[in-house]
């Protein structure tokens, strides 16, 4: 039940845009591509032609201000923000899980709003100020959100954790006194397969001062 949340994100125009641009890259522009998805497993067994060769694609230069520091990076116009963060700049805190805006593991804060980094093109983030989990704190000097996660064991494998942290950061920045219901609603776009939800709620409740709210 992953697609309900992200009340803080801008409306999801990203998906069409991204699919469209990816389509150009493969020469597969057309309604069939758009409606059937772009994952390789969807290949229909026919042979599409590459109309634009990857090597011909002109690279774009984007400037991303990540956790206060500006990074200038050359990307293909079709490159997705999450891939640029993770593979080019090695901000691997944000995770890739669904790559389709369904799980929240890639959540970062962009110009003050949470976004799914897998649903946005890097060129659309040009000039933006981005907060990732790496900017919250360090193991030696953890952010209060991080301290609470550790104290309450609000994870098991930890793969969903950075995404939840960023969602909670945005939540408490905007609703510093959120109650459990608001917390549940605003975290509904993040998925945890290990089932750490009860402890994650404790984290958020303590940060909003609603300790007894469970």
């Amino acid at each position, binding site marked *: *039940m*992953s697609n309900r*949340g992200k009340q803080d994100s801008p409306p999801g125009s990203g998906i069409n845009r991204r699919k469209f641009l990816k389509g150009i*890259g*493969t020469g*597969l522009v057309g309604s069939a591509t758009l409606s059937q998805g772009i*994952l*390789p*497993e969807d*290949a*229909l*067994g026919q*042979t599409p032609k*590459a109309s634009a*060769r*990857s090597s011909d694609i002109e690279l774009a230069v984007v400037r991303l201000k990540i956790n206060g520091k500006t990074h200038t990076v050359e990307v*293909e116009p*079709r490159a997705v923000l999450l*891939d640029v963060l*993770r593979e080019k700049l090695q*901000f691997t*805190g*944000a*995770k*890739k*899980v*669904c*790559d*389709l805006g369904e*799980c929240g593991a890639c959540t970062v804060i962009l110009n003050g709003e949470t976004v799914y980094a897998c649903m946005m093109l890097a060129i659309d983030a040009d000039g933006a100020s981005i907060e*990732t*989990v*790496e900017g919250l*704190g*360090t*193991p030696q000097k*953890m952010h209060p959100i991080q301290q609470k996660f*550790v104290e309450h*064991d609000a*994870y*098991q*494998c*930890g*793969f*969903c*954790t950075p995404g939840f*942290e960023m969602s909670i950061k945005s939540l408490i920045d905007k609703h510093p006194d959120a109650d459990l219901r608001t*917390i*549940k609603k605003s975290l*509904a776009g*993040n*998925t*945890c*397969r*290990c*089932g750490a*939800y009860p*402890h994650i*709620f404790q984290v958020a409740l303590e940060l909003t001062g609603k300790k007894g709210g*469970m």
Partner: protein
Amino acid sequence: MAQWMPLEKRKYVGKKIPRTDGPAKVCGTAKYAYDIVLPGMLYGRILRSPHPHAYIKNVDLSAARKHPGVKAMIDLNKYTVRYQGDEIAAVAATSMDIAEEALRLIRVEYQRLPHVATEQDAMAENAPRVFERGNVAWDNAGDKETVEKILAASAHVVEDEMYTQVQVHNCLEPHGCVALWEGDDKLKVWISTQAVHGNRGDFASLFDIPEENVEIICEYMGGGFGSKFPIGVEGKVCARLARQAGRPVKLMLTRKGEYLAVGNRPSALMHLKLGCDSAGKITGMWQESHGTGGIGSGAGMPLPYVYHVPKGAYYKKHGSVRINAGSARPQRAPGHPQAEFGMDIIVDQLAYKAGIDPVEFRIINDPNETRKRQYKIGAERIGWEQKFNKVPGSAAGHKKRGVGLGVGRWGGGGARSTKVTVEIFPDGRVTATTGTQDLGSGVRTLIHQITADALGISMDWVTPRIGRSSYPPSTASSGSITTGSVTPAVKNTCDSAKKQLYEKVAAALGVSPDDLEGANGVIRARSDSGKSVKWKEACALLQGQQISVTDGWVEGLSSSGVAGVQFAEVEVDVETGRIKPVKVVAVQDFGLCINRITSLSQINGAIIMGLSWALSEDRTLDPNTGTMVNPNMENYKLAGTMEMPEFDIVIDEQPERGVIGLGEPPRVPTAGALANAVYNACGARVTRMPMTPDVVLAALKKGGAAR
């Protein structure tokens, strides 16, 4: 026999200790396989069959090979594909996007074959065969006629059909790895795995190189739940692509690949009859059932589950059915949740029919003393007396509440082969090292706690090291045996290392080594408390020579066999059919609890996985096309924040039994407990999962609460 440290020496063991690797996880510095980025690294992708069943007449890689950026390609040389998602070919390219493009340029000629995508279709006469040997393997027990006679003579008999659907593991970190060749015959692999040492052997035999030449690294991994034992096609292909390209390759599956090809929990359709005498004692059980694990086997379930059925009074006919779908793999307590769902519902029905309270009925028929006790604890915690509707569905209004319960059992145990190295350095630092893997269970933290307590020092001195095949061998994390394997070996090895240190200390203090004991960072003589040294000073006696001891598992610190019960309270809206889980109480035994908070996380997580399966998850195949209609996280519904009930976890500790694994047991009782609570709430028996509103409304139509 070995023993755990006495209670007064447990400063960390048995306490609520935050995870050792917590800070790394919350700061994003924990590196999972997916996070590895190496210079010159390529990206691998797998081409999968879009068809459920086909001959492959030709695979033409030539166009893809010419695509700029493509550096390696593999044709897997398959003649037949047997499920949507079956692997056909793979590429490695300089970016993920280019690799995806290249897949689209591969021309595959298929000759479609008839498929079977449901158990019913597969069992039909003249059904298309998944494999030559036929689609169904039968497993029979007992004598049908005898059991039918017993049932006919019983005071009460109930009969129903229960169905549990296929559940996909959905580990958040996909399957896959990063492979790096260092020369022709040395391979390094960062992999998301439940079997660090097993994977070393897999790669070594694949390439026919010595095991020492393969290094497996898995410091962190994003969930396995039973699906990550073998290196898989993705592991093999990744290492082959890397070898071909002469460059490192990262190959992690797409989410769709995860849904199609790397395992699931088989379905189960259980037609059951159960009888009891007038006192409520079960007299006999009749079962005809089947289930499917796709092209794989393992669709059985351990019935009769938990409750005692007299010898000779059980009949079963079970079919393991093959269909054209991705193979099953072990999933968190394989078979047990299916068996629990069937058994706990039929038992519940029989209890109501016999006019005996469902809790009481279970106490009558469950031979396990631990659970007999747990039923009472659980009933008390959920408020059974007040909340149980003597007439199900009788509460006023359209949102009706009710309570129900379910049970579970599991094994556990430990692997004798487990080895650990403990090193004590002259500056006081200690390392405890073993090649296990932490799936999120917290074993890294347990090693840390135990080492500190066994040596009587602060955890600050200790560094636990896991997740590499170059470390001493540890078992695969299967069957909830990791804790039972690793922790006894750690304790024992610490004792051996301590002995060596105490010899030095004894000489310095002029006492016998046996006279020494350590606590709170001080080693002192029992006979003369004036004779003592601080830990740091004691280690300085090593004079530059560290102690390094490798030792193994010992008997006496672990056991197997655990019991648990869960009680659920739900609210059913009889107008919309929506089930709202209100509260789940779990009473769970797992011997000695090493860490009170990571254990809670495991139990919560197991319940949530059960709840999610019961209420919404469903691997849905279209029978006509044989393809999965919901291979994504939007339409494969995992329970999320909005579905969370209140949790009340009771750790039913039996410390004298030593440690027993906890990953699987609490996964078992949830679905049955919820279904029984739904009946108690609305008076309709929901016997099909997932218990979505349409299923609930259909059950209400058949019979249930008066509006």
